[in-house]
């Protein structure tokens, strides 16, 4: 059976070993003994509130009421170690529905076991204690909580989901928020369906094997009967394809803890997922389901729920587009105007969606829609204006990575627009109210993306390529009253400009500057606050204000921290060790200069020493330079890195590098009154 196993990138380790010793989990539903309660502390995670003793799942194809169906079985045994683990007794099972097809929950069993006077006492979940919540049109949640759960309880849950969606093969996570002693997934695939397997993570498999056999299915198949199209009948067909049973087991998997600077833990936990590659029915040509990027994009371009409507003439847009582009000087100007129009008048209600749930026309008139609906509308309007525009599919950082090799629809969750003008490509996202033309939100910098056109042009939005420069200047001079006045100017990074605009819009400028005044870290009275380019979204925002610095003279001395609000006050890397990469949003380059004119009657008693520290042989640098010329004091700090992503091995040196920055930023300037 032609199943391809693929190793993806360096982050993947597929260790396989076949072993005959203890290749089954000792856990069986209902077989709980007093012995099982003994252990209450697990070295795997000594702080754990619960331990997953076994988590065993399987998916197999079976004869359904119409064609194949999938049977997914799940069995979990969990030990609740303390009260914080009670949450694990609450279970939610999501079931999908679409049209007349559905997933149904069968054979649900759940039991709580407690050890009472040395005896195992079980309490079963009653069927009437299972609630059904209809979340939306396509989703039903079955919810329940187990009875009689106490500290030390063992709970077991087992159920089957019969699915009438045979192509969607459930993925499996071996790693979660609690330690897992035994995690096992088995899939049994008839040779008709070829899936690719995508696995990731940093834990080895304990068992990874497969076994071939043959299995007979009795299928009911629709057939055209009689003369002409008098009706649809079913006939019974018996087939005996070869089947392959794959089995993966991991043992003793410690949880991965969420830390800062990570796209999403979903990119890092040990898991395996599947994508249908082709269907091979006997006596039929092979139907590739997932083959090449151009094919995939061709389908997306035809899809009525995606780019299909872009090929219509969309006459309802003409009047508006004409109005918006009226007087535009050139193509670029046209594109900018249309972009601004959509951005300023439409509201995004869902930032994670690929397919349109409403028509283009509805999106147009309702002025709201999901991210794809709005950016597809943008593309449609650009096209109406005769511009060469196309959608771009991507995945946001929190949604996880896109494999450059495999066109997998479920890997995408976001659409932006591309316009090609005079040999240049510009990307736009009209769903974010403060983005400029040709700019993308930080969430979109997540690597591989693809243009939805015949060539399926690959694009890369790499954080490593996104330099984010911040430039701050502070000027201080003495005033006639023996105090200081100063001026602060900061050109924010583009990413920070976005959040700045958002904050100012929501709270107002006054509140924004009040906050700056409070956070200055020296007592100041702020005045003349102004934000340049607040509404020119393509440019970084520039914050400026004057201040009066109220430095106390302490026995003829003035002490001040020259970094003020811009000091890095604590190390952003808090954990001692890191088990997965550091993934920053962009490559930082933070610049700060201070120019200070000294008061006549003071001299510099002391100031921080100049330092230059290199990270990884000059891949990053921290400069902290000070100097004095006459009565002018100059200081400059620059923190510059050359990458956004760092491996776990580089973590320790990165952390130490930032420690030095924190330390230098805390140093003081001392001025002494001349006697």
């Amino acid at each position, binding site marked *: 059976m032609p199943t391809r196993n693929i190793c993806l990138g360096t982050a993947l380790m597929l260790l396989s070993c076949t072993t005959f010793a203890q290749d089954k989990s000792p856990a069986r539903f209902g077989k709980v003994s007093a012995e099982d309660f003994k252990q209450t502390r697990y070295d795997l995670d000594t702080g754990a509130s619960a331990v997953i003793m076994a988590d065993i799942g399987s998916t197999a194809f079976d004869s359904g009421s119409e064609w194949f169906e999938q049977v997914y079985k799940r069995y979990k045994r969990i030990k609740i170690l303390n009260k914080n683990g009670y949450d694990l007794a609450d279970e939610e099972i999501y079931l999908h529905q679409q049209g007349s097809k559905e997933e149904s929950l069968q054979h649900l069993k759940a039991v709580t076991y407690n050890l009472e006077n040395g005896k195992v006492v079980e*309490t079963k979940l009653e069927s009437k204690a299972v609630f059904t919540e209809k979340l939306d049109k396509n989703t039903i949640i079955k919810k329940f909580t187990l009875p009689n759960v106490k500290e030390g309880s063992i709970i077991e849950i087992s159920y089957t989901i019969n699915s009438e969606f045979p192509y969607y093969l459930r993925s499996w996570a071996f790693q979660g928020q609690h330690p897992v002693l035994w995690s096992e997934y088995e899939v049994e695939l008839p040779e008709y369906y070829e899936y690719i397997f995508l696995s990731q993570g940093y834990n080895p498999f304990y068992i990874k094997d497969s076994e071939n056999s043959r299995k007979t299915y009795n299928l009911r198949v629709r057939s055209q009967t009689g003369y002409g199209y008098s009706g649809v009948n079913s006939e019974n067909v018996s087939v005996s394809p070869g089947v392959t049973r794959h089995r993966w087991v991991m043992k003793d998997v410690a949880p991965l803890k969420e830390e800062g600077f990570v796209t999403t833990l979903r990119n890092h936990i040990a898991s395996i997922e599947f994508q249908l590659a082709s269907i091979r029915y006997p006596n039929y040509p092979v139907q590739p389901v997932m083959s090449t990027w151009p094919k995939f994009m061709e389908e997306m371009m035809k899809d009525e729920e995606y780019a299909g409507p872009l090929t219509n003439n969309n006459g309802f847009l003409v009047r508006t587009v004409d109005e918006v582009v009226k007087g535009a000087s050139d193509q670029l100007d046209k594109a900018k105007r249309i972009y601004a129009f959509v951005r300023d008048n439409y*509201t995004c209600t869902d930032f994670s969606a690929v397919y349109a749930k409403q028509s283009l026309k509805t999106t147009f008139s309702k002025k709201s829609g999901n991210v794809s609906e709005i950016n597809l509308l943008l593309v449609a309007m650009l096209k109406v204006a005769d511009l060469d525009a196309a959608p771009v599919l991507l995945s946001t950082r929190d949604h996880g990575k896109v494999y450059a090799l495999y066109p997998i629809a479920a890997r995408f969750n976001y659409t932006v627009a591309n316009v090609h003008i005079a040999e240049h490509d510009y990307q736009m996202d009209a769903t974010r109210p403060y983005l400029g033309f040709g700019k993308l939100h930080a969430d979109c910098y997540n690597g591989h993306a693809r243009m939805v056109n015949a060539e399926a042009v690959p694009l890369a939005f790499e954080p490593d390529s996104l330099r984010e420069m911040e430039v701050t200047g502070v000027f201080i001079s003495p005033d006639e009253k023996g105090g200081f006045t100063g001026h602060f100017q900061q050109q924010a990074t583009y990413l920070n400009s976005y959040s700045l605009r958002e904050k100012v819009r929501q709270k107002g400028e006054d509140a924004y500057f009040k906050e700056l005044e409070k956070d200055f870290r020296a007592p100041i009275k702020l005045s003349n606050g102004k934000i340049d380019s607040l509404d020119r979204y393509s440019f970084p925002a520039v914050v400026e204000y004057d201040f009066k610095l109220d430095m106390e003279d302490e026995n003829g001395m003035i002490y001040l921290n020259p970094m003020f609000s811009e000091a890095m006050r604590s190390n952003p890397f808090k954990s001692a060790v890191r088990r997965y990469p550091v993934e920053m949003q962009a490559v930082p380059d933070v610049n700060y200069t201070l120019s200070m004119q000294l008061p006549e009657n003071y001299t510099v008693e002391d100031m921080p020493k100049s330092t230059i520290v290199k990270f990884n042989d000059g891949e990053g640098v921290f400069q902290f330079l000070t100097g004095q010329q006459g009565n002018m004091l100059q200081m400059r700090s620059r923190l510059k890195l050359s990458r956004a992503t760092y491996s776990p091995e580089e973590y320790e040196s990165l952390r130490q590098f930032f420690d030095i920055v924190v330390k230098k930023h*805390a140093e003081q300037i001392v001025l002494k009154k001349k006697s």
Partner: protein
Amino acid sequence: MKRLIFLLLVGVQASAADPEYPVAAIPPALLKNANAVVRVQELHIDMKGLKDMRIVTRYAVTILNESGSKHAAFYDYYDQLREIKSIKGALYDASGKQIRKLKQSEIKDESAVSDFSLMEDDRLKRHDFYHRTYPYTVEYETEVRSTQTFYFPRWIPQDDILLSVQESRLNITVPADYLLRYKQFSYKGEPVQTPGKGTKTFSWEVKELPALEDEPMAAALRYRTTVVYLAPSDFSYGTYTGKMNSWDDFGRFVGLLNAGRDVLPEKTKAEIHALVDDLKEDREKIRRLYKYMQERTRYISIQLGVGGFQPFDATYVSTKGYGDCKALSNYMYALLKEAGIRSHYVLVQAGQGKNDLVEDFAVNQFNHAILCVPSAKDTIWLECTSQISPFGYLGQFTNNRPVLLVTENGGKLVYTPDYRMEVNQQNRLIKAVINEQGHLAGSSRTQLTGMQQDWYHGFVHSISPEKQLEILKERLNLPSYDIKKFHYNEFPDASPVPSMDELLDITAPNYASISGKRLFIVPNVLNRSGAKLDEAPNRKAPIRLSNPYRDVDTVEIAIPNGYTPESIFKDVSLESPFGKYAASAKVEGNKITYIRVMERREGLFPATEYAALESFFNSVYKADRSRIVFVKGE
């Protein structure tokens, strides 16, 4: 407990002609500080009978800017006892012309199960025009039919700050012989009464309320703007009927809902007797049964129909091992009853700082239930939803407030324990050494009592040790640090309130900053006030301070030899109606001794005291960051 308060913007038949809402017609005074302006709001309630209440709401609100857009979204809840019959809506541009109308297909219908619940039958209808060209106006009109008369809508014309109101009206029509009860706040005059055919109508009206500002530590909305509570005399709730003329009535009704729900399985009864029959003291019996309850149950909220007010019975809790605040309090009541101890089910308006229940008007203001075991000298209060609460102690969630005690003879308002400043202490001693590099290493020993231990108690019991360490590091707020060791000792039975001891071993690299020959040290290592207030010459809201406390910090730091103090800050001593503060430092040889005392009082203070509050808080903020400068001798 369930959301007990109905949506506020709930209103009146539209007039025949389509209205217009030109922004130019808004009086300038209403634009000041406002993000949105309620142009008109009409809440019309027609109570036709105890099981039939019609509520028609119409409102139009002009959204001036992006911050005001939250007022543009429409939502309303419904459940088994409340049906939304219709929703209409329209969108108007700045000139007041209608742009479009709401289409029924645009209304979203969602499950409204709250985060803390496993299951509820509440659902939500939601709509938004998603308009983005400011200013604009949205108008909504809803018709709701309620088959219960236990709770009535509240009228709060101005339900948010930075929102002004042009005009708002409340009309309620009840049968002529029905006694309608109401309580008004910040409203001049009395409602207009109009007799109808077999009915009577009460009307309230406000006009031109300027926007309220965002003011820190502001008292509840009813001290700042018009609020009218409505309440029934006779009412119907599910299959029950009752009266609400007094707290006595209210309690009687709750007693009726709970009646007969205290039956325990025989097995549980036997366990109770085995547990307590040999004990002499009631207090010990209660303690043991409370522990029994804590070990066998957990909090699971399931709210269906009248279940928002009626507990699951004691047998249910006994067999399932879970329940919500009502079910668990009722269960505890049943356990105590079986042991021959009388207790009372208690309804509470819970929440930190929510201790100002309206006492002179019986109306539902509750969201929680606890249990009270009365005694002439030592009444015991039990929080039954927590598996970790110390016996007989109520934390900030329910302490110091009026609550409704449900007795055999009806209800009465009583007060939960008031934990005063003197019992909420944090006494800390830090002994540390700073070395030549400026690194600090030392230990901190802290005694925490009363409400000051609430947070730590929850922290120790509900978070894994690994996460605890992470959170502690966050809280220390030092530039770079490490906690070498941390440990908590608990004294849940300490008198008069539980206490805890915290032991920390910390190192803080670069705690002192060294520049050349100078050493800068802030001797207040771990207790710096975070509250800095803005000037507010026109403060309007009264000031509410809750959770009084007393902190005493003693810090001893040894510094490297060879340094002499260059600058030591002067002693600070502040006194104000809000509390007292003193901080001083002295240097003897190479040892710094720093002492800080902060006493924060509680109370409701007039807005005119704000300048004093600002001065007090900001002086403390500054003093907490005072440093000592040392210079190295040549």
